[in-house]
């Protein structure tokens, strides 16, 4: 279609006019300025796009909460500063250490003596068992062992064979002979 010797804007040019009218070629821009038909087409699309924004806002919920700073949010405003946060962390860590490694003492004040008694008992038991083991190995006291010479002589199997020869082996040999 023609208007005053100029062509009407194409659909693409109308679209571009909505993106940025200044980017249209000069003759197209001039035509748009004076052509009511093209202006109407542009206006129609423009209105639809404006309605998108308007309806989007109208059909959006209204926020119920207001902004809360970090202090308000946590309800411990003073504790949020880095210095207090460090102190709090250290205190908490210390408390946990005490709880883990020494917690029993806090709740059972008599447990120290109980633990000591048990430890002492265990020590006595192991001492007694050591004495029993020593007696099993050598029933005679060390001094008698030295008198007997067993402390000096090494009683290995060869020496015992020399002292007490194997009777069964000898019998077999004599039978063969």
């Amino acid at each position: 279609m023609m208007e005053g010797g100029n062509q009407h804007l194409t659909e693409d040019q109308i679209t571009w006019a909505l993106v940025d009218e200044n980017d249209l070629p000069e003759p197209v821009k001039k035509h748009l300025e004076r052509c009511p038909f093209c202006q109407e087409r542009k206006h129609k699309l423009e209105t639809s796009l404006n309605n998108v924004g308007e309806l989007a806002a109208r059909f959006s919920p209204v926020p119920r909460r207001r902004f809360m700073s970090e202090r308000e949010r946590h309800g411990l405003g003073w504790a949020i500063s880095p210095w207090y946060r460090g102190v709090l962390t250290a205190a908490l860590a210390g408390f946990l250490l005490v709880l883990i490694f020494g917690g029993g003492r806090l709740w059972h004040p008599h447990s120290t003596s109980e633990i000591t008694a048990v430890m002492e008992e265990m020590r006595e038991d192991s001492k007694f068992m050591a004495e029993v083991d020593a007696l099993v190995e050598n029933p005679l006291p060390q001094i008698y062992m030295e008198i007997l010479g067993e402390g000096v002589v090494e009683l290995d199997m060869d020496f015992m064979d020399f002292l007490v020869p194997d009777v069964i082996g000898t019998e077999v040999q004599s039978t063969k002979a």
Partner: protein
Amino acid sequence: MIPTGKKCNNVTQPAGAHSDLEILIARAQAGDRQAFDNLVDRFWPDIFRMVYYRVRSAMDAEDLAQDIFVVVFRRIKSLKDPSRFRPWLFTIALNRVRDFQRKKRFREVFGFFTGGDEDTVGYYAVSDEPGPLHNIMRQDFWERVGSFLSKLSRLEKEVFILRFMDQLSIGEIAEVMGKGQSTIKTHLYRALTKFRKESRLVGLLEGME
């Protein structure tokens, strides 16, 4: 009138003049808590809606808006040019939303998250026009918008939402997305071409006139 970005570019102000917003930002940067609260009051609804358009859950939108302003509170001193506050704020918001969506996808992949997009609008008051007809219209609108947006590429979608729903200017969108203005215009042009073909949505919107 197509949105030209909200009043933060000060193009009509004489040189050296500062807008109320810039003064407020300067005070907030100096540690004035009252100024920061005023700043939050001014932008809280915009950011809440900006997040809601992308996550479609009112509760998540509130949580994310909260997180976004906590980041703003921490970083406001690093903002060099107060006149660029709005794109700066939207950059933080967009990054936070992307982060949320990434985590949500991750949870979905590994089965930690069972629900889809939940529109908790029933839990929240929708503006001041409750009622069954309003709810039907709302549902219909979001369904048509969702259908249209699903046909756009990621960048086309983001540019379209920033331009026509968040009401940012081309320059602000370029800043928020870290891309050149010509790139933004190209994506916007493609999105608008698809929009014109979306007869269901366009029909609804034309009926609003």
